[in-house]
């Protein structure tokens, strides 16, 4: 059981390329179809909960399913399993980058990658924005926060708390 948990989430961690929602089909396949650890309804609920709790969806699901199937131990095993592939691969990449940092070709790669990543981060804002700007209140909050950030440099945590308050006020 614990072994099954470990293997399933290791697979999920290994094949989740592309971040965020790309993981969902794998989680769905493993947790619901193959192993029957969750019903579809529960999966949707967990998705909703993952939106409002810290951490990536893969970790949230791993912890939740792990707990359901094997208690606290299960949650630790599943969470570790889902992180392990990333850990190994990123460490290997980091090690090689460190070694070849001074090489001109590596530097050339990153020179162009930096603005490309900038475009990517901007696209993430757009992507998130698509679901978010459902009404004028959301737009107002967004503009307000952007202005505060640009002219005031408030602490990020205070901003999030403030935004939460605005949410309760406006809605």
């Amino acid at each position: 059981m614990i072994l099954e948990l470990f293997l399933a989430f290791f697979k999920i961690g290994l094949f989740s390329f592309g971040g965020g929602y790309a993981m969902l089909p794998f989680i769905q396949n493993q947790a619901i179809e193959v192993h029957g650890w969750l019903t579809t309804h529960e999966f949707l609920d967990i998705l909703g909960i993952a939106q409002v709790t810290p951490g990536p969806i893969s970790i949230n699901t791993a912890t939740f399913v792990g707990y359901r199937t094997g208690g606290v131990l299960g949650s630790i095993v599943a969470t570790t399993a889902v992180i392990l592939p990333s850990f190994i691969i990123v460490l290997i990449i980091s090690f090689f980058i460190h070694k070849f940092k001074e090489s001109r070709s590596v530097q050339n790669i990153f020179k162009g990658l930096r603005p490309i990543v900038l475009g990517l981060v901007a696209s993430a804002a757009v992507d998130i924005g698509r679901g978010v700007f459902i009404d004028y209140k959301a737009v107002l909050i967004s503009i307000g926060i952007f202005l505060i950030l640009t002219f005031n440099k408030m602490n990020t945590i205070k901003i999030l708390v403030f935004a939460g308050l605005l949410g309760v006020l406006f809605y």
Partner: protein
Amino acid sequence: MKLFKLFMAFFKIGFFTIGGGYVMLPLIQKEVVDNNKWLTDEEFLDAIAIAQSSPGAVAINISIFIGYNLGGFLGALVCTLGTALPSVITILIVAIYLFQYREISIVEKVFLGIRPAVVSMIASSVVVLGKSLGFGWDKIIFAITSFTLIVFFDISPIAVILGGAVVSSLYYGYVDRKEGEDR
């Protein structure tokens, strides 16, 4: 003790990374680049590139990469723990005590406020990072192309990064050779 400071920083970051990995970016920028000066803006962008190119959540990958750069294997471990722990603890609390109460409307309202704010935070990060990269037509073209491909052509970010790495290496290799010839 540096490892402890790293852990606390990423625990803080992990705690507030709510609703998706990209929220983490402005938080890391504030904590790791601005406050602690552990990384430059450029190194931060490099970390994002690597995080996108590996399997798994961007938030975790970034923690591993930055942790390794700042403290080797232990650093990677400590940062990853810092990021994952708030998540694990919160979900366990939810699973054990709160799953039964999942339709709490005030919580929904808090997040209706937070989500648009997150968009602004990311936008603001982009502005800051853009300023630090500085002006250059090559950079502008790279940035706009990547943005367009992802937003309007639905190309996956990892394809953009891998393709971009190749293009960038070829382009700047060419620029180097030209500069060599002109001398």
